[in-house]
Every structure is written in structure tokens, then in C-alpha cells.
């Protein structure tokens, strides 16, 4: 290894994205190496500081919640981009479209006849005991039979070099704004990385997103008026909400900006009322409509579900998609693909043990130290336990917790996420850190789109496998 990476040491038994186990540079990183050969540590440090200042001034931030306070911080990022070749990306893209097509067919089926449950491909109890199953959605089909229009699928590359699906995020997946912001920052900081190369653009995402939203507007609507519903500027992902609304040129609204009259949704505008046709909501189901869900919710719109079920407004993503978000249900996606599409899954799942199944539970209790335990319905890395980091007493306590409520947990083998050179400021050098990949897929009426690349998240803490930003992770700029 040379130059900036001369001290870079790959861990044993891990797949490093940039170097193989023989310390040879992978082909797709050749350009990167040549650009970085022109830099020394001092110059790189300067570029890094300038990029950080740019993010700070632009307010590209993320709110971190602790017990004591909520702190607004710039979204951590690393200037060394991750590179995925076009050929590799093609496979991933097909895999994401296949997966999300099957998931939408599953949601449609579950709420309309539930044939897959009757055929016992997916246990009915698993679906009906999910906190996100909504009775109100039974018998209803949204426009285009699309329930999950925007999904964030998390993948990892294991030490065998293959990609695996870690989980699906089908409610309000976040992170795409950082993909777009990171790419702009990288192009300004290191333009030579882009010159003369065919890099898949990412700036088409918001245009595709808007077209997706418009494609699922109620058929009777002429204007196809779309809005983005945000909990407000104190929400951790508010930067993303305002960023997307701005680039799409649509209204950013809060719950009290909307009202329902005669099952039609309107905006609280000065002058005449303005009808809303599509709501891209970044609010959980529980807070969406105080009439149907949490009656204390101040974030939602009273009567919104009535308007939705009357077919007068489309909600993106549809209420009730969380049953596919459930990590226990996620384990059955390859079966769904087989059932609905007659195909094998292009991208395999990380093996998953569903604690509600007695056989799986027995395995989990006997092999705790080899596993990662996850609550089925949490996101953002919250609640994830890597068991071999616990004391014996903590392991025993965890076993009791799982046994008390097995439906609430799944377990996965501890996968050795791939690593990538990451600039560590304190050490002023590059060190390997574990990364994953979040892809963003859009499904509309007769259209689909996968954002080239996606968001590569990095666990900034040495040895950590938790990449989520809410747990202190950062992001990498992704080029493909």
C-alpha cells in the first residue's frame, strides 16, 4: 500500500472493500488511489475540515437523542468514497426491484384475502400479532396496488464477499438527503474523482420521487397536488424533509397545516382552500390520525384515514406497511419472492431465527454468544444487542427477556461486515471501519427506480458493527 494508505492494516477474516487479503488494490479503486496519491495527510486534513465547515454552514444536520438532551450535529461523513462497479450494481438493482415487488404483492395479499397466509407460506399469527397490522386497511387497495412506494433496504457484505439483506425499512426510511449532499460535497472537494469517469448520477432522485408520488395520485385528481408531511423542525430527520420538499418543489406541511372536510384533505392556506392529493408522510402510523390511532397525537390530521379509505388522497407509504418492516416477517421475503414471482431471491437474507418459533428459540438460547439479538419493530439500531459483548449475567438476563416475549425478538448470526478505509481524525490516519449499504427504491404505478449506489454507513467506533447514525455512525460518499 502506498501514500495516504501506507499504514492501512486490514483485519483478518474480513472483506475489505478497497484491498484484498493480499493487500492488493481492488480494480474499481484504481482511480481513487491515483487521485489520493496526489494528497498528503496535511492536505487531506484541510479538505476534510473544509467539507465539515461546508456541511455546518449549510445546516446538514442530524439530531442525536440522549437521556439529557437533543443535540444537533452535522451528519458525520467520511471523504473517502466507497466504490461499487456498474456490473455489481446491476445485480443489486435487480435484487431490490424484485424484493420490493414481492413485498408490495405481499401487502396487497395480506390486506385482501391473505392467500399467502392461508397457504401457510408465512405464519398468519406472525402477521396478525405485528404491532403494525392495521385492521382499517383490510379490504382496501391503494392506487396501483402499491403500499410501499419508498423503501430503504439495508445490505451488508459478509466476509465471503457476498451481499446479504440485513433488513427492510418500509415505513419512513431516511438518509437519502445525505446521499445527495455528500455527493455534492465530494464533487466540490475532489473534482478529479469525477473527471473522465462514468459515475451514475444521483441528482435524478427527487425528480423520480416526485414522478412516483404523482403516479399514485387518486385517478380523479387533475392537479396531483403532492405535499410532504413532517412532524416539524425538531424531528431528527427534519433536514431531509425540508431538503426533499425543496428539491421536489412541493409544500412541506405539518399536521395542523391540513384539515379534512367531506373526506377531502385541504391545506390551511391564506385565501382559498387548496386540495391535497398525495401525502408523502414522514410520521409513523400511530401519530397519523388521532381519530383512528393515538388520540393524543398532535402531529397528524384528524379524519385523514377517512379521506384515504374513501380514495380521495394517497398516503405514501401506505398505513400498515410496517408489518413488512417487522424483522420476523422480513425473514420470509425470499419465500414471498418464490410464491408471488416464481423466482429465487437475487440477494439472500442474512439468516434469521424467529424466536416465536420454538425450534428457532431453542437454537437461539443455545447459541447466544454467536448471535445478534434484535427487537422486531425498532429501527435506527436501537435495541440491537451483540451478545458476545455482554457479561454472563447480562446474557442470562437477556435470555429471560426473550423467553418472556419471544414474539418481540429475532436473532441473526454475527455477520462480519466488510470494512473500508475511513479517515480517523484523532489518529490522523486511515483505519478500517465496518460499513453497510442502504439502498433506496421507489415503486410507483407502473414505474420503479433504485437510486444508484445509496448510502454507505460506517461504524466510526473501532470494531463496532453498529452503523446507524442514531448510534453515532457516519456516512460515506458512494460512487458507482
Amino acid at each position: 500500500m502506498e501514500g495516504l494508505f501506507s499504514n492501512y492494516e486490514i483485519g483478518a477474516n474480513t472483506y475489505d472493500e478497497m484491498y484484498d487479503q493480499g493487500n492488493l488494490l481492488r480494480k474499481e479503486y484504481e482511480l481513487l488511489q491515483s487521485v489520493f496519491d496526489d494528497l498528503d495527510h496535511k492536505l487531506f486534513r484541510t479538505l476534510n475540515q473544509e467539507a465539515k465547515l461546508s456541511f455546518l454552514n449549510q445546516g446538514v444536520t442530524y439530531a442525536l437523542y440522549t437521556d439529557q438532551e437533543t443535540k444537533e450535529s452535522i451528519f458525520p461523513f467520511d471523504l473517502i468514497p466507497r466504490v461499487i462497479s456498474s456490473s455489481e450494481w446491476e445485480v443489486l438493482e435487480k435484487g431490490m426491484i424484485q424484493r420490493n415487488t414481492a413485498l408490495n404483492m405481499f401487502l396487497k395479499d395480506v390486506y385482501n384475502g391473505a392467500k399467502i397466509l392461508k397457504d401457510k407460506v408465512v405464519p398468519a399469527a406472525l402477521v396478525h400479532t405485528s404491532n403494525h397490522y392495521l385492521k382499517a386497511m383490510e379490504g382496501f387497495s391503494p392506487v396501483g396496488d402499491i403500499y410501499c412506494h419508498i423503501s430503504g433496504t439495508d445490505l451488508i457484505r459478509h466476509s465471503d464477499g457476498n451481499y446479504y439483506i440485513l433488513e427492510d425499512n418500509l415505513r419512513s426510511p431516511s438518509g437519502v438527503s445525505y446521499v445527495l449532499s455528500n455527493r455534492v460535497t465530494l464533487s466540490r472537494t475532489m473534482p478529479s474523482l469525477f473527471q473522465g469517469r462514468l459515475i451514475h448520477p444521483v441528482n435524478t432522485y427527487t425528480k423520480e420521487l416526485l414522478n412516483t408520488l404523482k403516479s399514485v395520485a387518486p385517478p380523479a385528481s387533475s392537479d396531483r397536488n403532492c405535499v410532504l408531511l413532517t412532524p416539524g423542525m425538531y424531528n431528527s430527520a427534519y433536514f431531509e424533509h425540508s431538503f426533499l420538499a425543496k428539491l421536489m418543489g412541493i409544500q412541506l406541511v405539518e399536521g395542523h397545516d391540513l384539515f379534512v372536510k367531506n373526506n377531502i384533505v385541504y391545506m390551511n392556506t391564506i385565501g382559498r382552500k387548496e386540495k391535497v392529493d398525495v401525502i408523502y408522510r414522514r410520521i409513523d402510523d400511530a401519530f397519523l390520525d388521532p381519530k383512528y390511532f393515538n388520540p393524543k397525537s398532535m402531529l397528524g390530521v384528524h379524519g385523514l384515514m377517512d379521506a384515504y379509505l374513501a380514495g380521495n388522497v394517497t398516503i405514501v407509504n401506505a398505513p400498515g406497511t410496517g408489518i413488512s418492516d417487522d424483522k420476523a416477517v422480513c425473514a420470509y421475503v425470499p419465500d414471498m419472492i418464490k410464491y408471488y414471482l416464481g423466482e429465487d431471491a437475487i440477494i439472500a437474507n442474512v439468516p434469521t431465527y424467529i424466536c416465536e418459533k420454538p425450534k428457532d428459540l431453542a437454537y437461539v438460547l443455545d447459541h447466544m454468544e454467536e448471535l445478534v439479538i434484535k427487537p422486531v419493530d425498532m429501527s435506527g439500531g436501537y435495541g440491537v444487542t451483540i451478545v458476545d459483548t455482554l457479561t454472563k449475567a447480562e446474557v442470562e438476563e437477556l435470555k429471560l427477556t426473550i423467553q418472556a416475549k419471544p414474539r418481540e425478538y429475532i436473532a441473526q448470526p454475527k455477520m462480519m461486515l466488510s470494512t473500508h478505509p475511513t479517515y480517523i481524525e484523532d489518529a490522523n490516519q486511515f483505519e478500517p471501519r465496518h460499513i453497510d449499504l442502504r439502498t433506496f427504491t421507489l415503486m410507483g404505478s407502473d414505474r420503479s427506480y433504485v437510486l444508484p449506489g445509496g448510502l454507505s454507513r460506517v461504524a466510526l467506533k473501532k470494531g463496532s458493527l453498529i452503523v446507524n447514525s442514531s448510534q453515532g455512525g457516519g456516512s460515506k460518499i458512494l460512487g458507482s
Partner: protein
Amino acid sequence: MLIRIAENLYWTGRYIKRSAYLAKYLRVQYFSTLDASMSQNLEFTLRSILNMNGMQYESEDALDHYEVITKVAFDPDEPASIFSTVFAARENTRSLRHLLSSEMFESVNKLYLFTKDFDQEYYRQRGLFEFTTKIEEYVKIIRSDMQTTILREDEYNFLMMGVWIENCNQILRILKSKLIDTDILSDNGENIPVMQYQWTITLKTLESFDMHNRYYQNQTTIKSVVEFIISNGKYPRSFYYNLSHLLITINKIGIIPEGLSKLKHEVAKLESKARFFEYEGNSELHDFLDKSIQSIGAIHDICNSLYFDSRSYKGEGDTQSQSQK
């Protein structure tokens, strides 16, 4: 336009302008003590600054110099401090960032970060000039971004409505504050040059010293100063100028709510009084300023009820019309 958005735009305009006025007044007043008579001692100046900001203090207590200048600049619990005003501007802007240009948002964010992170000990020792000057510079950049990166639609109009109203508010407050100062000095038996110095400070606070000199050829009297600031149609910071532009902006807003004629009438009435204002003595000036401050408050209240009161707009029939563009 969403009611909430219109209101945020209005207050963004107000808070941005307010932060510049507070910074300017603090600096000009504070440094004026260095070159003033004994009557305008530090305590006199600190009281003037607190009066202008509308901050409470016990008049009989001796004011702590560092405590006052820190409070005026940084106290987050004091709504009239520079920090609180900048923070409010930024919070309003955050809820508008999908609507405002990236340039403008970034400028406001930089102002906030600068204010938040400025070394307060350095400020107390020698950094007041740098701090307040930089605040004004940031606000000028923000104003430039408003002028050059926002489409001339209702987003711009509501921003400017806030700007004009805040300008009127601050001009009146500055004049009132100075009038009180000169009353105190007069009670202390100070002579005319001392009084005139106060009015010179007023002109500098409003960045109008050079313009006034050119207009009145270096004759600075209370009459020339207050008439210049209140009624001169060519001076872009005059009370009259700001009121006429407020009226122009109101006419440009593309929505005509019921009751708009009342708002226009109030503004036009006050504009006329400002235009034909003549100084006739301190007592009359006090009266004019007090009534004008009340009128600006009433105009703000009417704007609030016409444009920002959500109870008016729950779709109870299409009673409001929309003007032709």
C-alpha cells in the same frame, strides 16, 4: 400559501432586521461614551441601551458594565438580546428552508453559528466592536440574498412586510430612546452641543449621518435630525419611506382577505402623518412617537388577524377572492 409559512416569513424579516438594529445601537452607544461629556457617563449609556432593548432594570441600582453588555448580547433567557433575536430568526428560517434559497438559509445559519460560538470573555474585554460589526455584516449579506435569490412572489412580499414593519418599529424606538436621553441630559443642565451629540449618535445608529450632512449641509439640530428621519422621502431609512414601501408591499400580496382595506387605511393614515411631520418641540415629539409606536403595533395586529389567524381559513366556503396576477 400556508398560513404558518406566511407568518414564519414575516417574522424572519422582522428578526433579521432587529438583530442588526440591536447590534448597531449597542456599538454606537457604547463607543460614544469614549468621546462624550461627563454627563454621558457609562451608566447613562448602559441605561440608554437597556431602554432601547426594552430590558428591565432597577433604576436606582448601579449597573454592572460587563453584566449589561453581556446580557444585551448573549442572554438566551432575555427575548430582546441579540442572541435571542438571531436564534429566533434562525428557527423561523429552519421551518422555511424548503422555500428559501440555499444561499439565504446558509447566510442565516452562519449568523447564528457566529453569534452562538463567539467567545464571551473576549467580547467583554475587547470584542464588542468586532462582534457587533460582524452581526451587521452578516445581516447585510442576508438582505442581499433576500433581494437577489428570492422570487418576487408572496414569499418575498411577506418577508418584506416583516422588514418594513420592523424598520418602522426600530426607528421609532431609537428616536424615543434618544429623546429620553436628551431629556435626562437637559435635566442635568447640559448644553446644546451635548444634546446635538446625542442626535449625531442617532444619525450614526441609523447610518444616515453622511446623508443628513449632505441634505442639511452640516447643520445638525434636533429639528433637522428628527424631520430627516421621520419624513424625508429620499432617505431610505425614514419612517415615511418605510411606511410607503409597506403599503406597496401590501398591495403586491396576491391574496385579498376581507378587511384588507382597513389595513391599507391604517398604513396610509400613518404614512401621511409621517410625510407631513414637522418638529414643534419635545413634548409634541414624544406624543407623536408614542402614538406612532401604538399605530405600528395596531398595524401588526391587523396583519396578524388578516393573514396569520388560522381560524379564518378552515374552508368554510370560498369567501376570499384571489387577485389577478
